[in-house]
């Protein structure tokens, strides 16, 4: 298997990390949710982020995507400082995410939900809507084609026209991934994409993430509790505890680190 690091650069991509966090700090009142996080994710990597509940994983992604801008430190996307930019603007720069607790529109079909992911590529205006046949139709076709590509990629044909409400959770997670991929991001944040899945669904999802990296040139930040997934598909990883970094590097080394074991499993086992 080719790993991301060996991949040749596609024209237009800059060398250097896709995302770089420098001493990022975020507080909520007196609580330090993130305390001086340094993280570098290289192009084409699948980067794992782990830690016990409440350790700051989601806060870190919210800091990157602009929901909770950091109070200290800088965040760079493709070398450009995005600290404090609005979330919708960061999305147009090629960052897409999925949510830990599904954020799909239940009353809409799978297809429409995925089409929503294209909104950053759409150029709505009164004139274009009024003169739909002349001004907007070709764009609509292109957007639909892009969505169909993603449906094909994630094998969602069977539920294309179903309401999101009625499909199983494993598929909902896949629809979320589809919506994120429909935005054609260069950087994708997956917040626990495999929560609540069985072994088979997990394997499918892992395959899709690897394929997304290889075929759609996406760099991935993966938050996950399933350690087998992290060690199985991530190139490097970072472990957090109480908002602080407790280990980073190649998964095999990080998961063997006594501090990580203690944070996850408890002290008694760590000393064994």
């Amino acid at each position, binding site marked *: 298997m080719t790993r991301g690091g060996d991949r040749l650069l596609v024209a237009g991509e800059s060398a250097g990390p896709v995302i770089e966090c420098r001493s990022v700090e975020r507080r909520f009142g007196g609580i330090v949710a993130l305390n001086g996080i340094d993280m570098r994710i290289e192009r084409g990597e699948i980067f794992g982020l782990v830690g016990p509940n409440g350790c700051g994983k989601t806060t870190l992604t919210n800091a990157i995507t602009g929901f909770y801008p950091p109070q200290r430190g800088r965040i760079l996307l493709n070398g450009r400082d995005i600290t404090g930019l609005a979330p919708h603007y960061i999305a147009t720069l090629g960052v897409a995410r999925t949510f830990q607790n599904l954020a799909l529109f239940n009353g809409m079909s799978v297809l429409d939900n995925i089409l929503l992911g294209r909104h950053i590529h759409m150029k709505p205006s009164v004139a274009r809507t009024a003169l739909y046949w002349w001004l907007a139709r070709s764009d609509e076709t292109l957007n639909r084609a892009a969505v169909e590509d993603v449906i094909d990629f994630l*094998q969602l044909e*069977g539920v294309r026209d179903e309401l999101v409400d009625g499909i199983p959770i494993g598929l909902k997670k896949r629809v979320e991934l589809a919506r994120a991929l429909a935005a054609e991001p260069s950087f994708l944040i997956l917040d626990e994409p495999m929560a609540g899945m069985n072994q088979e669904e997990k394997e499918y999802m892992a395959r899709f993430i690897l394929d997304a990296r290889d075929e759609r040139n996406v760099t991935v930040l993966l938050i996950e509790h399933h350690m087998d997934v992290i060690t199985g598909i991530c190139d490097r990883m970072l472990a957090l505890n109480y908002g602080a970094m407790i280990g980073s590097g190649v998964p095999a080394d990080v998961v063997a680190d006594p501090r990580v074991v203690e944070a996850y499993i408890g002290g008694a086992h760590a000393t064994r």
Partner: protein
Amino acid sequence: MPPAESASAWNFETDSTLIRVLAQNARALPDCVAMREKNKGIWKQTTWQELLDIVLCCAAGLEGLDFKAGDVMLVLGDNRPRLYAGMLAAGAINGYAMPAFPDATLDEIRHFVHEAGARFALAEDQEQVDKILDLREQGATIEHIIYDDPRGLAAYANPGLISWDALQAKGAELLARNPNLQNELIARAQPEGPAVFVHSSGSTGKPKGVVLSHRNLLAGVRNAYLGGAFQFGESILAYLPIAWVGDFAVTMGAGMALHFTINIPERQETVLQNLREIAPTFYLAAPRSWDNLLTTIQVRMEDSSWLKKRVYDFFMASAISAEKRKLEGSQPTIKQRVLNWFGEWLVYRPIKDQFGLTRLRGAFTGGEAMGEDTFVFYRALGIKLRQLYGQTETSAYNAIQGLEEVRLHTVGRPLPGVDLRISDAGEILIRSGSVFSGYFKQDEATRESLEDGWLHTGDAGYLEPDGHLVVLGRLSDVVHTAKGERYIPNYIENRLKFSPYIKDAAVLGSGRDALSAIICIDKEAVGLWAELRGISYISYADLSQKPQVIALIAAAVKHVNSALPDGLQLRKFVCLHKEFDADDGEITRTRKIRRNIVEERYKPIIDAIYGHQDTVMMKAKVGYESGEVGIIERTLSVQEA
């Protein structure tokens, strides 16, 4: 439409080949649609001229890979235009296209590949390529693997892997270099050359390789056409497994010879949606699929509003009783006719429209016998469902029912061009141009089944005085109870399976004094039934043992018993804790029961039934996805019927 006329003027030259017929279509109807494929949400069309070009490029490309006459190409995947084109191409250069069921186990495929010495493989996607690479590691002779969908295969560096696009480009280059090659390729294959290499279903043993020649296939199509099975230019949905002779004989055989429009579903899971979009004019499905469709209709009606249910029940009851009168040879009453007229607009047509059955002219079922109630239901809807009787060895077409000559227990008259007689042992013998010339590398089996040109079908049956054929079942399946009553378990099983709540059943009783059954409930139908009544359950096994569910099944068994003679009524039954599964070897890929395996595996149950126990402890091995093997114990209840 003049081009269509000139093509249909073709008077069934069975002395031809599929590629020649394809070329003929391309000449007569170059811009008509040959294939439609739903790809990325949109139906994309391929004309006859384009299809011919694709097949020729593939054939030339295969030759470029050193594909020689007599070479075997394994074809693995679901219905895809390119897999069909690849099979036509192999047949055009005197090779054997050998389709296999895409969900077949590695062992099954290895057996086929080894026996045939296949050097080539055509795979749909990464999943199938992986299987073939596994086979190769285990020593299979496959040198070249052609794949259709390149997704996920970019990083594979295995030797001999080539994408379809690359193969086609290679072929196009060879064709451009040699202007005579095109015509030579069309003319090369001979009528007696191989068109396809399929395997018989193997319900009574290991699957046997059956090679059908172009002439066999075309003769079969001719017989079926003359018998009124289909006309020129039908629109079909090619969704049946490509390894089943029925699919090849309809999609490729009749599809080429009668220039059908061949529509290919997007994925197996979308067949029902695609059926509605396409609304085919010809539809062949195993009884099981018709049953499933019926269950779907019934389940959806259960879910609908009170008023709709009442209207549906009222009109369906009327139409079904009218249809039953017709089957008994009398006319529907005037009241029934009036009601049917309203029913057509209120109920039947809307249902047919929901499932894309409005344009259906030829609706067929084949493969095994069909339950009476299913059969009557569709005819009541106004779908002229008919039975087709055939087998792998006869290119799928032996006999069909006439449009208005339908009786429940017969499969209709032998087709024109089919000689049929009954041997002294009660076996159906067939002689026709569509009968194959022998099993692949199995001379002994060939000698046993072919005598003086007569094929021993292995089916027990008889001819009615008016020439209608009655197929009882497999000759080897006829069994006797201890009291000497003759019966065919399959016949009773099919009646049980008509209940929407019963997915599979195995009838026991050979050499015993009474019959009994092992029953697998239908998870979806029973699950919904339980849900509507607030019965909670945690798994299939749990659901199957709920007292209410057992009572439900007991009612279904009683209903079947009411139509059976006294000595053949089911006395006891057990609801099994799992469904029969082809992966566990209990049924074949075409869902025919493997009786010996069922009887061996569930011996404790059978002992309990005939040992007059009330319950039985069943231990079962389960293979988990992690590779571990565990044992689960289940107490199953033995029930009086």
